[in-house]
């Protein structure tokens, strides 16, 4: 199995990189969160494929499940923040969030 490990890693890296590019380029707060989700997908793919390569798929599965639960918590918190920000600033542009600097 381990000879296909690199294949999964190739796609995992692609996902992470796509997410990072999105984080750097996009300005809509929700878009940024979607980009974070993409990064997360890449990482969970990496985690599971590593377990597969080591013939530890059950453990890796447990890790991925925990990872997903954490992700949900994060996304819920982030979305709550975004809604609050929308209420306060009237927009969703990350560029308007530059009051704190220096």
């Amino acid at each position, binding site marked *: 199995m381990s000879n296909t490990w690199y294949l999964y890693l190739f796609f995992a890296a692609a996902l992470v990189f796509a997410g*990072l590019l999105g984080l*750097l*380029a996009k300005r809509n707060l929700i878009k940024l969160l979607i980009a974070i989700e993409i990064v997360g997908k890449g990482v969970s793919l990496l985690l599971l494929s590593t377990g597969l390569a080591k013939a530890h798929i059950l453990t890796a599965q447990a890790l991925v499940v925990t990872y997903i639960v954490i992700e949900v918590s994060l996304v819920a918190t982030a979305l709550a923040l975004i809604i609050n920000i929308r209420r306060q600033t009237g927009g969703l542009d*990350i*560029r308007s*969030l*530059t*009051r704190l*600097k*220096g």
Partner: protein
Amino acid sequence: MTPKMLLLPVLLPAVLAVALLLLPRALRLVRDALAVAGAGVLLYYGFLFFSVKDLRYAVPWLGMGIDFDLRLYHFSSFILLALAGFLFLIAVYATVKMKDAPRGREFMAYVFLTAAFANGAALANNFVPLVFFWEGLLVTLYGMIAIGGRPTSGRTAVKALLIAGFCDFSLILGVGLLWSVAGTATMSEIAVEPTGLAAAAFVLMMIGAAGKAGAMPFHTWIPDAAVDAPVTFMAFLPAAFEKLLGIYLLARVSLDFFKLRPGGAMSVLLMIVGAATIVLAVLMALVQKDLKRLLSYHAVSQVGYMILGIGTAVPVGIAGGVFHMINHAMYKSGLFLSAGSVEHRAGTTELKKLGGLRRDMPLTALGFVVCALAISGVWPLNGFVSKEMVFHGALETGYTVFAVAAWIGAIFTFASFLKAGHSVFFGERTTDVPEVKESPAAIVLPILVLAALCVLFGVYNKLPLDRLITPVVAPHAEAGAHLDFTGHALDLFNVVALISVGCLVLAFLIHRHGFLKGGRKAYLASEPFHGLPGIRQAYDLAEKRVFDPYEQGVKALQGLSLALYKAVDRPIDFVFEKAVTAAGEKFTGILKKAHNGHYANYLAWCLAGLVILAGAIGLLAK
């Protein structure tokens, strides 16, 4: 006498400091009595410890070579005694002088806290306690200037703290280096050759010690503090305690920790620092217009003699340097206390507003004149003896140039004290100052005691030299070396002493020259004068305000002095105060601009950091 007793000089003043701080304002008398009594007890123990001389209190502390280790031996007991003596005099003096000061209570507490730290520093036999006590002095230094009550006091306090902090940190660095070179932090076990890494350690520790003593270029806070801090503080810290501790440590560093050789690179380095400090600081003193500022520049200049003496690394020079340390502490303390006495009654220390106070304040005047003569090195006072020893030491190393520098310093020291003494205590009364009375006994007595000691240590120099100084030098001299410094101490008829006398005469001539050019009448000659005849004539020759010799006769010199003041002293001040600040602000500004609040920017830093770190770890691993 058990080893535990060594904790007393540290703990007692610390406890007293807290007690003094807690006593309510209404119980001022109790407070004063407690302070004087406490200082008296410390002085008593100072004598007791001096008679015991050999005691060590060491308890394991942290492991890793860090022990709480106090050691009483000849040198530290000598310093301990001197510290206790000055503490006592200052405590007595402050009861009156600081009576109405707005924060007198805090001042007293700081004095005793300083004493606790200073005693600890003198006794410490392990680097870690030493650094601890040493750094503690930094805090009290800041505090004592900060409570000066003038608008600029806070600024000066920060300046002092930054400069002294720099010196202290270089001391810490030096300690760390020396510790790793010597392999132990126990001070009595260290003796290394000052080469390679150890040389760096030596230089760093030298900066720490000489900086504490106020050598150039770490002196610029002292003249400022003279104006901004209570004058009692000046007599206490820069004049006495800091000199004692700084030179004590310098002597330990150059004699015990490192084996300084006469003519070696480190020895020459020390002599250069010493000679430069002597000459440059005294030239700056000449142009000062305020008595306290003038005295403070001399406090810097005289350090040069001590450093020069120790830097010679020959027995007579070292002995001279250490002897000069104790002498200087006495007369400079006396001079500052006299200035304080004048300030107490006349309300000012500006030279041009003062004059003729000799009649109103005869005892203060007497004390001032004796101390001024002593600092100028007039026969047969203590300053003469120790300066002669330094001259001899400098000549013995073969570097005549340093002796010449020291002589030049002697000329201008005397010249500027002629100016100061004359304008304050002699000449005509001015209208700026009303009729005044002599200061109360608590102020005058400490001055007179110090003046009397100056005479005693000069005339009967056998006492301090044999009992205090020679045992310090003895372990470092070659076996069988001639260590009797007393025989010719007051001998006027040798080349060195004659040159010194010539220097003093030259100082008179400068005045005379200036006076004649001015063409004024010497009506001061008719004034009765209870001092030495030579001085009297010199003062009589100068007629007007003491600035005139420079205005009329030595314009060139004044130009040089001013130029040096501007070209050396102020730039150093500028470096510490302006340039560092400006550079810091510039750098800060650039960094602040980078934090522009943009998320993508911050994320990019993180990713760039990741790539760089991965590369760095990978490359370094290979």
